[in-house]
């Protein structure tokens, strides 16, 4: 039951995606391991500054690498070494299960004296324990099945190798891993900055963290999978019963702009996306997340405070819809301070992040391993929830 889910007895799906996420010496995360293996959805809770958002930053680093950012200085900064400790490496390790295979990616940075930016000390990708490539400083070795010694080359140690190494086919492990990483959703929506307009050439399947490119994401998803509209429409009509449809007409050469139509007995009104309220824009984001989770299984979604901007009676349903969407594959990681969101998760799927001070690292524990007296939300309000 830990690794497989049987939704309504309809068959066995791939196990949950992340098996291991380990971080050392990055911001507040020291010797930190995210305990999400086998879990469909988890909620990260904890005080301000405890490291919930930093987990999203780590995922975003992996994602940006997969999307092509390879300059180390654009990914991590020396000031992000935990407590500015430059004598220890900054380490990121990610182990995921995709199509029944275990992908293990390791990336280690160091900050030698006299350097202005970090450099790669070690990097590598393994599939089911077999190396795809290994790297130490500038030296990269490609490992090919059946070959005693694969090709080697040198690379600037201020560049990450993963985006550079050419994958051969769509079944190539590098392609599979990079595509999955690149398609993760790492979200922290800011409704006021979301745009419903898009250009044909910026249609995308990859929303930016603040979802400023909402229109481009909507266009890209519908172009890639037209059937996704049905899921979007069904969800939005549940939360906005007077929704008629969403249109994305051409408004100029190469441009589109989202229009949201509402109707009832009194008539119909068509509103530009920008006219929606902040909460309604979050419903629109949620609709695309649900549809994306259907299209790209197994999807990983990290959403920092999904309950922001929502009315109190919507928060529980919102969290529930997100948890439900990832039951049949993928993983959802949310963060929240909202009691209604927290109440949607169980003791096993609620992870408390805790840091005693800015001079100490974050620790993380499932609520099921803590001694909580009475109601969790009440204990959080009292500040009584701490790891032993």
């Amino acid at each position: 039951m830990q690794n497989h889910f049987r939704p309504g007895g309809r068959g066995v799906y791939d196990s949950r995606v992340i098996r291991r996420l380990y971080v050392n010496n990055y911001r507040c995360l020291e010797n930190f391991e995210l305990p999400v293996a086998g879990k469909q959805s988890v909620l990260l809770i904890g005080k301000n500054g405890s490291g919930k958002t930093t987990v999203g930053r780590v995922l975003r680093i992996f994602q940006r690498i997969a999307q092509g950012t390879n300059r180390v200085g654009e990914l991590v900064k020396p000031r992000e070494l935990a407590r500015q400790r430059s004598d220890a490496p900054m380490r990121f390790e990610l182990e995921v299960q995709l199509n029944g295979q275990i992908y293990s990616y390791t990336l280690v940075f160091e900050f030698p004296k006299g350097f202005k930016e970090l450099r790669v000390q070690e990097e590598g990708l393994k599939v089911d324990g077999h190396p795809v490539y290994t790297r130490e400083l500038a030296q990269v070795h490609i490992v090919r099945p059946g070959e005693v010694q694969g090709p080697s080359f040198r690379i600037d140690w201020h560049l990450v190798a993963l985006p550079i190494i050419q994958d051969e086919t769509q079944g190539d492990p590098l392609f599979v891993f990079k595509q999955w990483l690149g398609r993760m959703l790492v979200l922290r929506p800011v409704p006021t900055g979301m745009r419903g307009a898009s250009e044909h050439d910026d249609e995308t399947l990859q929303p930016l963290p603040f979802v400023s490119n909402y229109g481009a994401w909507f266009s890209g998803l519908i172009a890639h999978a037209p059937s996704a509209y049905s899921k979007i429409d069904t969800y939005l009509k549940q939360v906005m019963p007077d929704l008629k449809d969403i249109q994305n007409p051409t408004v100029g050469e190469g441009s589109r702009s989202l229009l949201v139509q509402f109707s009832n007995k009194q008539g119909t009104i068509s509103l530009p996306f920008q006219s929606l309220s902040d909460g309604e824009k979050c419903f629109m984001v949620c609709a695309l997340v649900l549809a994306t989770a259907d299209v790209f299984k197994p999807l990983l979604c990290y959403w920092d405070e999904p309950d922001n901007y929502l009315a109190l009676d919507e928060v529980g349903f919102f969290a529930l819809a997100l948890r439900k969407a990832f039951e049949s594959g993928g993983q959802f990681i949310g963060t929240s301070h909202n009691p209604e969101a927290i109440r949607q998760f169980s003791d096993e799927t609620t992870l408390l992040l805790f840091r005693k001070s800015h001079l100490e690292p974050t620790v993380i524990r499932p609520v099921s391993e803590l001694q909580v007296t009475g109601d969790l939300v009440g204990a959080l309000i009292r500040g009584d929830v701490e790891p032993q």
Partner: protein
Amino acid sequence: MNKERPHILVLPEDDANRQLANGFHRRVDWDRQRRMQVLPVAGGWNEVLSLFVSDHIRLLELWPSRFMVLLIDHDNDPQRLMRALKKIPNHLRDRVFVLGVLSEPEDLKPAFQLPLDEIGAELAEECRGDAGEKWGHNLLKHNASELDRLRQQLFPILFAGEAQAY
């Protein structure tokens, strides 16, 4: 939640019952999830009944499409169910249900070797019609008569297709 259409409020006694209810809710058909809502925990079985009497009777009268499920621990007290049922006015008896674990929900975890919300999810699957024996467990089988009423009245609200007997 559309209060004009059939909908179900679940009032859990405590956090353990909340987790059972949440797990159940997760397995409700995704386009019917807004027909059910798990309320904040009452803080004890007596508090469930007090809240029901002070707040919910009037609201049930106001909203004829509303149903309620009271989740209370029986704490091995054979009179607990009868005491709870006595609080329900006759004219609302068709719309209010009382369910609970014979002792307390924590005892289900070792019995089923699952976390509470997963147990709740599997109980929902059995309601949907999947084979299973969880509702027949010693800690839950006393709910049979209430469950039979639930099957007839509430499961069609939450699950597409006709829920089967189990």
